[in-house]
């Protein structure tokens, strides 16, 4: 126990712990705001608006929409979300089954590894101009998001399958399970926490990809488009407002994934190391 400003902190009290966390988090954000403000004032440059200017631009954006194109902010958010969720869904559909198969069958892994190792280090953004110009401005950004989420997710699923306690497979086999039953009733459920880990990492990377991809697809709209448009026009506070929206959306999605992950882990009482 320690006493701060006459308040006694008890680390075994859940409410105290929560309160402590919140105080630290709020302090951190306040420090961030002041630092931002300072830099803005010191730099005295239009390209670094103050938090207040940014806030005003954000309120304006929400109320008036994009003053250049006349489209509403919800239109942009909707467009970005659609691309994001499509890319994410596609990544789930491809990476999870593929990861399970690669992790389970050594020959598939040996076959797939060279290709994966060549493609994996390539920044997802590098694909943006190719996908968008060569395929389509709606499908292109989806594919960029897909690539961004796909590799971390795949790696985690493969890892999850390999990390499985082999005793559980032995147990299932001595209980009469066939190979396919071992796969569906043991491999898949025990890989779930690792899959969720990959999902969490992938969701964050997905946001990085989408904004960049939208820069190459002005026809599509979206937050990334708005950011580029406003910055090009020299409306810096509006550009910063766009960044703030991206930050909030990113927080919401990863936060949601975190909650689902925790629930799942508590439910089965397992952790992914």
């Amino acid at each position, binding site marked *: 126990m320690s006493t701060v400003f006459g308040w006694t902190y008890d680390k075994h009290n859940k409410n105290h712990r929560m309160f402590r966390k919140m105080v630290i988090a709020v302090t951190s954000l306040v420090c961030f705001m002041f630092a931002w403000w300072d830099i803005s004032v010191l730099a005295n440059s239009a390209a670094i608006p103050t938090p207040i200017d940014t806030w005003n631009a954000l309120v304006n954006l929400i109320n008036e929409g994009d003053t250049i194109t006349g489209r509403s902010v919800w239109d942009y958010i909707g467009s970005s979300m659609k691309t994001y969720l499509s890319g994410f869904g596609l990544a789930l559909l491809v990476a999870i089954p593929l990861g399970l198969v690669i992790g389970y069958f050594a020959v598939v892994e040996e076959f797939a590894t060279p290709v994966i190792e060549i493609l994996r280090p390539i920044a997802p953004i590098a694909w943006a101009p190719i996908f968008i110009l060569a395929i389509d401005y709606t499908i292109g950004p989806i594919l960029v998001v897909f690539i961004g989420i796909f590799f971390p997710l795949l790696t985690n699923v493969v890892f999850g399958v390999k990390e499985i*306690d082999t*005793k*559980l497979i*032995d*147990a*299932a*086999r*001595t*209980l*009469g*399970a*066939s190979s396919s*039953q071992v796969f569906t*009733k*043991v491999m898949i*459920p*025990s890989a*779930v926490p690792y899959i969720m880990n990959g999902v969490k990492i992938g969701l964050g990377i997905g946001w990085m990809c989408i904004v960049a991809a939208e820069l190459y697809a002005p026809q599509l709209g979206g937050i990334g488009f708005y950011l580029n448009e406003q910055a090009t026009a020299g409306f810096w506070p509006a550009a910063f407002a766009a960044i703030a929206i991206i930050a909030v959306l990113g927080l919401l999605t990863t936060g949601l994934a975190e909650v689902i992950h925790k629930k799942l882990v508590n*439910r*089965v*009482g*397992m952790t992914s190391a």
Partner: protein
Amino acid sequence: MPEDNNNRIEEGSVFLEIDHLRKVYITDESQTVAIEDLTLDIKKGELISIVGPSGCGKTTILRMIAGLLEPTSGTITIGGKECSEPGSDRGMVFQDFALFPWRTVRKNVEFGMEVAGVPKEERRERAEKYIELVGLKDFADSRVHELSGGMKQRVGIARAFVNHPDVILMDEPFGALDAQTRNLMQAQLVRILEKTEQTIIFITHSVEEAVFLSDRVVILTKRPATIKEVIDIPWPRPRDRAGPEFVALRKRILEELEKENVMNG
């Protein structure tokens, strides 16, 4: 249990035969003979335990019977059928329980019946009976991580027994438990044995456990392991751990094992 499905084999007759079993572990650099020329007949309905110096290959034998490991030469047959693949005719209880953490107690016990396609109602009914038999009625819907070690192993036992396999292979099942829980589990296993005709091969480090539970105790030599001696224990169960006969036999087996360890060292 009345519905024991192996009643075609008469109790007391030989039905599991281990014949000239040999296992060599081969790596790129070396060959290690783990099991050398091991021959043993196991009778229907008996509990036979295997003791031996640490690392002598007891688990290797059990895994070969389970079909999880292939013998280098020799055969293991149940009722004339070779045990080359794992199957539901040989259940196994693991030292570290090996329960499925994403399943409840009930669902763990039902696993074998589930993969065998037993209808839901029957599955539930049979699982219920065995969960009760091991004293976990109030925990049927608990998750595995909520249970103590002793409770976990009782789930492991119920999960194996519920399928009425020809033989249950127990690999140091109480080895991970504290001494007190261990004694309780042994006593409970004796009670369960009164109600079933289950054949069991039991591996243990504890000579006391072997003498307390077994109809026969097989003493193995140090590696490469083969049979040093087989001791019949015709006494009724439950047995008195402090009785003079018990103590004397325990001492004798310990001495035999010590000789192996000395020769080893």
